[in-house]
């Protein structure tokens, strides 16, 4: 099993609904977020190109955060989801410094927190909150090992990119272009 997510940058309008859904679903403390919207403007007027990306933890296959965690709090869960065990985390910040996507933060309670691909929902066969709530249905979630999953099907037929693959992290967040 290899969980992954695809985000259609052609359909995303940058409404931030995914951000709010995540904050609500996961009880993210006020002032923090586990996912966010990046807006990229390319070119000079009037030849402009706009891209919206809903970004979060890339649940990398070669995660620097898991590698540098001194206690094993950061680990791979089922399906390659990168998780943090709260009561093993010492809050040293090594994983935060190691993440090229800046996807982690320190929870006010002291441990490090991040996107979990809503593991509590996916375990029950539901999709993550951000995917479920998207009004333009621009996000796809599923198992890459299953050729019939939403994400497998969409990345088979569409062109995609990943973020800074040259950092060697093997990110599992696919942006359809």
């Amino acid at each position: 099993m290899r969980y992954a997510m695809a985000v259609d940058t052609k359909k995303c309008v940058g409404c931030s609904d995914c951000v709010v859904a995540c904050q609500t679903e996961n009880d993210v403390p006020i002032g923090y977020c586990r996912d966010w919207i990046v807006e990229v403007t390319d070119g000079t007027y009037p030849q402009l190109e706009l891209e919206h990306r809903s970004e979060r933890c890339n649940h990398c296959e070669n995660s620097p955060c898991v590698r540098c965690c001194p206690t094993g709090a950061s680990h791979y869960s089922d399906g390659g989801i990168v998780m943090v065990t709260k009561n093993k985390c010492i809050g040293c910040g090594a994983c935060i410094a190691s993440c090229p996507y800046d996807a982690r933060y320190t929870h006010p309670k002291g441990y490090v927190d991040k996107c979990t691909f809503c593991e509590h929902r996916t375990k029950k066969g539901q999709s993550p909150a951000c995917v479920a709530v998207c009004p333009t249905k621009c996000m796809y979630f599923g198992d890459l090992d299953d050729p019939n999953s939403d994400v497998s099907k969409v990345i088979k037929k569409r062109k995609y990119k990943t973020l800074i693959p040259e950092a060697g992290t093997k990110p599992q967040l696919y942006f359809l272009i």
Partner: protein
Amino acid sequence: MREELIVSGRMNPHIDPQLQIWEWHIPAYLFLGGLAAGILFFASYFYIKGKSEEYPTAVKLAPIITPILIGLGLLFLMLDLKHKLYFWRLYTAFKIESPMSWGAWTLMAIMPLSAIWAAFNIKSLFPKWDWKFNIIKDALRWLENYKTAIAWTIMILSVILGIYTGILLSAFNARPLWNTSILGPLFLISGMSTGAAAIIILSKSKAERHAFARIDLVLIAIELFLIVHMFMGFNASTQVQIDAAAMFLGGEFTAPFWIFVVGLGLVIPAGLEVMEMRKIKIPYMLAPALVLFGGLLFRFIMAYAGQMSRWLY
């Protein structure tokens, strides 16, 4: 032209607008760790070489402060942790891929050994020192039998401790400025140089001071070479590392780094040490004090600048 913005307003504290996860604790700890590693290396090395009488400060006196230095460093590390009550989790796991993990274990091993070494020699500093409890006296007498073995262990561990302070940072490929394997040797050499400087400050013998000034001079030369080599490497590397080096080659860290770290912390003390060897009278504290200052500032600048270097945006 390209503009990338986080429009949903991500403002995670200590992450945005720029990473600031490590403040003064980490560079201060890296300095104390490197300094203790340097002192312990010279103490054990010259003990093994049988030069305890020739270099009494290096072998006996200076190591007495190392348990304090390491303890202070550990205190800073502890203050830096955000989930403090779980710090013991460091010692329920050993992660070979995580420099922080084996660094924590190295500290755990070298801290008591440095205390034992200090206990061996405390009477050279306080002749009237009395351990009061016989059990301590007996334990020390028993440990004296293994003094050479302890010295060897301290020497190996001190090198690991010194180099780990650099490897800790170089293991993060997300921060291009840190992500160079030269950082380990550079921090080790810099730590040894600060160790030699501390020995010069504490020493009362002119011959010993001169010997360590000579050692320090060699270390400073190696350090200068490694710094130049590091920037050459950056400029011959990928765009993110060219950008990282640019912070020091015209960017915001240019003046503090080249004037204070390289100039005041390396070149001027090297010049002063040469002058002293040529018997020109200058206050002997000046050169080592500058080396210690340069070493401390170097770690602060590397820690802060490293967090500013990045891949995205």
